[in-house]
């Protein structure tokens, strides 16, 4: 069957709510409206008002409530709508969600998921187009997941809901309507993708290209294009950015000896900055050339759609950078 990313997220939520009555969702406009992207449509009718709850616009209290509900026995999935709004409760996520178990002791379990719709979406403007992964990668204790396709989105969200550690779950908005062919029996098999496991999306031998979220399909398109010129690119999707699956990534770099990172967010202090630093610290002797960071220009995402597209990496930009590495 052809499945959209948005449907995969919605199905993961429904399946987990059917499986475990402790799972509940809350957030702005998730009930009657079915969230602004339609992902939770029909859930109020199926699960009732006690488990599908609208909230006032009160992000700090919502994140706090997820903590309190999680540690006392529920498994809340909180929706913060745009990822940009995750900065309102930055303190609650950075200090409380991430550190709560560490600073209070192991009896404090935190089975909670914070979902947010991430990144650019054709004209959403400077405060509705951001990716926040790199900001929260600075918070030990937080698990950060960004799926890049419908299959992964479903399996990773189910794993996140079943985890006793808190998960920040980022959903690139431009992926919501992307489709993937998945066999019915596989899609309906209650599969779960373990957190902390990267995936080799395309095998190659010349360059390891680590791509995150929306950049994964663009990296795959670039790899296809480069293959025409005999350039073999291995595309790796970390899927979980924290904790990071170093083994899968390092094994690839030990094979290709070249590494590039592509992300949707700004270059400065981004995911690429962190990974490039890691590679030169831990894999210096394996590298045959400089590590390339492919990222958005260090500028707010402009409302002008042409400028939005100009500032964020696409397949052509990726191809140019990879060619320059060889």
């Amino acid at each position, binding site marked *: 069957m052809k499945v959209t990313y948005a449907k995969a997220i919605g199905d993961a939520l429904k399946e987990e709510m059917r499986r475990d009555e402790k799972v*509940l969702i809350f957030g702005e406009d998730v009930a009657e409206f079915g969230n602004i992207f339609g992902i939770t449509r029909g859930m109020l009718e199926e699960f009732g008002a*006690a488990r599908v*709850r609208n*909230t*006032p616009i*009160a*992000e*700090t*209290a*919502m*994140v*706090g*409530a*997820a*903590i*309190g*509900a*999680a*540690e*006392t*026995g*529920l498994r*809340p999935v909180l929706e913060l709508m745009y990822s940009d709004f995750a900065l309102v409760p930055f*303190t*609650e996520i950075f*200090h*409380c969600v991430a550190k*709560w*178990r*560490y*600073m*209070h*002791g*192991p*009896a*404090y379990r935190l089975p909670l998921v914070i979902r947010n719709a991430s990144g650019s979406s054709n004209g959403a403007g400077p405060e509705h187009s951001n990716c926040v992964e790199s900001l929260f990668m600075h918070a*030990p*204790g937080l*698990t950060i997941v960004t799926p890049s396709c419908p299959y992964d989105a479903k399996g990773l969200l189910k794993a996140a809901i079943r985890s*006793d*550690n808190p998960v920040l779950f980022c959903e690139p908005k431009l992926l919501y309507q992307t489709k993937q062919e998945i066999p019915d029996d596989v899609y309906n098999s209650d599969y779960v993708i373990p957190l902390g496991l990267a995936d080799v999306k395309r095998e190659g031998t010349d360059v390891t290209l680590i791509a995150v979220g929306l950049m994964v399909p663009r990296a795959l398109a670039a790899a296809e294009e480069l293959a025409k010129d005999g350039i073999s690119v291995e595309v790796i999707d970390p899927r979980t950015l924290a*904790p990071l699956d170093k083994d899968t990534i390092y094994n690839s770099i030990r094979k290709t000896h070249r590494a590039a990172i592509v992300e949707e967010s700004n270059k400065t202090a981004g995911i690429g900055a962190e990974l490039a630093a890691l590679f030169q610290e831990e894999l210096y002797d394996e590298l045959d050339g400089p590590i390339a960071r492919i990222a958005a220009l260090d500028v707010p995402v402009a409302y002008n759609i042409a400028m939005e597209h100009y500032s964020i990496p696409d397949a052509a930009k990726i191809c140019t950078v990879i060619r320059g590495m060889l």
Partner: protein
Amino acid sequence: MHYEKDFLRQLHSELLKARMLEQKMVEIYAQGIVPGHIHSGMGQEASYVGVLATRKPGDYFKLGHRPLGIFHILGEPLDAFFGELLAKTTGNAGGRGGANHLGRFEDGVVGFSGTLGADAGVSVGAALTIAAEKRDNVSYFFYGDGTASRGPVHEAMCLASAWKLPVLFICDDNQFAISTPRQFSSAIENPGAGRAAGYGMPSKVVDGTDILAVYEAARELTKYIREGNGPAVIECKDYRWRGHFEGDQCPYRDAEVTEKYMAEKDGLKLFEAKLLADGVLTEAGIAELTESFEREMSAAVENAVAAPEMKPEEIFDNLYV
């Protein structure tokens, strides 16, 4: 109102222990064996013990950074209490959390954020569990007149009332946010109770040094909450006897006013005087209780001093468990 003698003795025992723990913490801080900071809650104990006299099994508690002795009153053994304070492996978080993060989950303690007020929503979430499980429990959220200014507290009140959840917001007005007097931060006299109406909550203001008055007000509000009517606010008026932290000389306030509060509004002494007059307690009984708890505390402090500290190979424990 008529009280059983056993109830009054229990209340007194908790109040006395809370005070003695505050004194002990000041004492061991002065000895230089506490690695972090102590924020003494001396003079404020009756507000907490009085409210918590309404608790029952299954309730949840978010306490403050003062008075810390309340964590023991809720059940944390003294070895774990002083162990955490001294950053030892015997502490409730093995020394990872410290003075601000005492308490145990099994006692209903939901945790504490060092960024005051960031945990207000946590009490709302605990109340959500109570509602989901259809229990008649209460989620107690203690905060101060300083924290009353913070957005997360207002958001928590907004969410708790929108969802009609069983939260009791307890504003302990000790009159100072570090050095800033409540009169500066709040244009109204009661920064807790005075804002309750904005969220459709009933509220009461009470003298926090009169433990029975606190109890009676809290009893009425917790009854309202346990009956499923939604959140409420109680504001306890007391006075922070000591500085914000040990070593704070309080140049920002009049020492004579402080001395007057200590002499005339000591919640423990006032309660003891009443119970002695009513024949509920005897001087000898109080002395016996004081001595025996002093021995317990001293033994626990000795144990904590002797207890091992976390080793480098244990520093990642509790992270991604």
